[in-house]
């Protein structure tokens, strides 16, 4: 059995400065981050929560219906809470503007190639989330930053994106493609040069020579900014490894999500990044001590008044008990491989989270103050 995850102890501890919620897409990371932030604020911390791509109703619950790339106070909470959603394009623009003189910044921002990578490069969102996290943590306005991570296919993208982005922006590749013969230098053998020439031609004929020219112009303008960018990414990475940071791996009780959670757990440990525990969302606890087999048998035996509803209730309970068994089996597999990782189960709630009360309920479930019957066992 894995130990229980005590999230109240985590968010109440003044030494906890950053909580990062990560996990694969569609497991409820955004809701988890928001609920945790509301709970922490109402328990006395001064909190800012960075959400990435909240569903519309969740955004409304946090008062995020305005377009803003800065935190705004959340009204109707008893605590001190600010919330924002990441606008990756604006975060990128602001980064360029703060590192380059106005004229050059303008030139970069207008470059079509920059516009492509700042809006559709697959790691941009992750990189910008890191950048924003660095800004919020460095601002000194809040004593706890809760971050949601982008809905990438793989949870690891969040950790790898800044490096991928750096490699991308350091310009070697763009120079090679734009002028392979000159940039190749001694390091490349003749045959590769020739191959590269053809490759560049093939790429060029598909994506158009204009794109390569834009890319080239971008790299020239960006060159001097690059050092500053890399340095900031390094700093944020260091922040993630500091003792004030806690990672929460969020998963749903499904094989894919738990597999990602396992990868992430291993990765965090190999990077010396502090993992607080696993949040297992949308579980289906069994609320009455009747086994699936007994319930199904009972459904065949009922008679007299109430038999129709009783049979229906027994059958739906049996389905739920089967589902519960499967979920526990999947969790057991995870815990067997990662025995020390504390776990909290958050039962599935019917319907969307549409307001702060919904987030408070999720917060209570996260803290283990669950539904009354949640501890019942299958008999």
């Amino acid at each position: 059995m894995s130990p229980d995850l005590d999230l109240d102890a985590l968010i109440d501890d003044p030494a906890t400065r950053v909580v990062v919620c990560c996990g694969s897409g569609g497991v409820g990371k955004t809701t988890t981050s928001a609920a945790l932030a509301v709970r922490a604020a109402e328990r006395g911390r001064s909190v800012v929560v960075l959400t990435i791509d909240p569903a519309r109703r969740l955004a409304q619950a946090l008062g995020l219906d305005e377009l803003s790339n800065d935190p705004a106070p959340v009204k109707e909470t008893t605590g001190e809470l600010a919330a924002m959603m990441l606008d990756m394009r604006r975060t990128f623009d602001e980064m360029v503007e703060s590192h380059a003189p106005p004229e050059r910044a303008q030139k970069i921002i207008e470059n079509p190639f920059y516009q492509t990578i700042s809006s559709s490069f697959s790691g941009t969102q992750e990189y910008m989330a890191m950048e924003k996290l660095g800004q919020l943590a460095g601002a000194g306005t809040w004593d706890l930053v809760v971050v949601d991570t982008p809905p990438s296919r793989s949870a690891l993208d969040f950790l790898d994106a800044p490096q991928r982005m750096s490699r991308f922006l350091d310009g070697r590749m763009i120079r090679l493609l734009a002028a392979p013969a000159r940039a190749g230098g001694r390091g490349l053998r003749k045959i590769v040069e020739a191959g590269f020439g053809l490759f560049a031609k093939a790429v060029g004929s598909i994506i158009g020579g204009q794109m390569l020219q834009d890319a080239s112009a971008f790299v020239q303008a960006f060159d001097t900014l690059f050092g500053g960018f890399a340095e900031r990414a390094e700093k944020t990475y260091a922040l993630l490894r500091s003792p004030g940071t806690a990672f929460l791996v969020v998963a749903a009780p499904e094989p894919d999500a738990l597999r990602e959670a396992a990868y992430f757990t291993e990765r965090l440990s190999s990077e010396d990044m502090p993992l607080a525990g696993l949040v297992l969302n949308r579980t289906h606890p069994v609320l009455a001590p009747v086994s699936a087999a007994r319930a199904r048998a009972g459904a065949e035996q009922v008679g007299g008044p109430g038999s129709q509803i009783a049979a229906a209730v027994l059958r739906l309970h049996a389905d739920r008990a089967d589902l519960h068994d499967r979920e526990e089996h999947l969790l057991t597999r995870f815990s067997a491989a990662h025995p020390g990782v504390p776990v909290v189960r958050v039962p599935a709630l019917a319907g969307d989270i549409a307001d702060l009360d919904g987030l408070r309920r999720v917060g209570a479930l996260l803290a283990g103050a669950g539904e009354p019957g949640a501890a019942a066992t299958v008999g």
Partner: protein
Amino acid sequence: MTTTVRTDPGTRPAPWPAALSRARLHVVSGKGGTGKTTVAAALALALAGGGKRVLLVEVEGRQGIAQVFDTAPLPYEERRIAVAPGGGEVRALAVDTEAALLEYFEMFYRLGMAGRTLRRMGAIEFATTLAPGLRDVLLTGKAKECVTRTDPDGRPAYDAVVLDAPPTGRLVTFLDVTRAMADLAKVGPIHGQAKGVEALIHSPLTAVHLVTLLSDLPVTETLDAAGELEAAGIPLGTVVVNRMREQWLPDRSVTAAAGGRVDAARIRNGLLSAGIELAPDEIDGLVAETVEHAVAVEGETAALRRLETEPDPPLPRLTLPALLGGVDLGSLYELAESMTAQGVHLEARR
């Protein structure tokens, strides 16, 4: 077993219209998390029934097929992965984008040994990042190559190809990428190839199946994608409602139960008649489970109603049951059987 939601059979098209049994490229998409890879695998098995040969292709580098069939990660080559009932077979191909890109360029330019070096340097990742469409061009190109390939005797190598495609949000961009490319590369071999893919995708030889769950967001995405496909002139196959839950409550009780009105005393009496005696708080637990079930059923009924009433004309629809024990190889055959029972098949090879 009861079927969840009743529908009026008079107004609905057949779950598997005859034209679909002549399609050769079956594209499966859906919102993330709806189970499109599982559905694609089951569809490949169902289509292979009765002695057909079907290729199942994945393009997102996730090794989803290997996971569904519970085998080791697939290499970039076509290999047999399952035998279908009645002697058919399913082969699988996990496309490695970088290898496929080099292969693609080889068709037009002789890169020779440089290919591997380029790959090691990250040039290919770079190029596909620079132009995300490039990836899609070669993936759709690979699918077309599999569809049109012939054996030495001149017959098609595969009766059908099932493509586990990107999620609905990216689907039309993905499928129609060659149209954009054909504009960029105006002449030459790449242009010709792009034209060929475009023709296939927009012909009755292609059918796009959209996998959905019965909840609001997936249904909205499905209906949006169906509209986009229609506007782009890409033929829609079926909507596949996946993980249909058993509805155990009588229809007339659902609304009341969803509103929290469940008669605990009646349940208690009914249970007693079957010899099950529970404490009051345990009965409350059952009531809570019943309310949750009813709320879920209500949501599903509303979602199904949208699927039925919003598209005009109505879309062909396949339904697959929820598998409480999870998906394993055996249940994959169960899903394929369910599809076959709903009419899924291919026309005999000529």
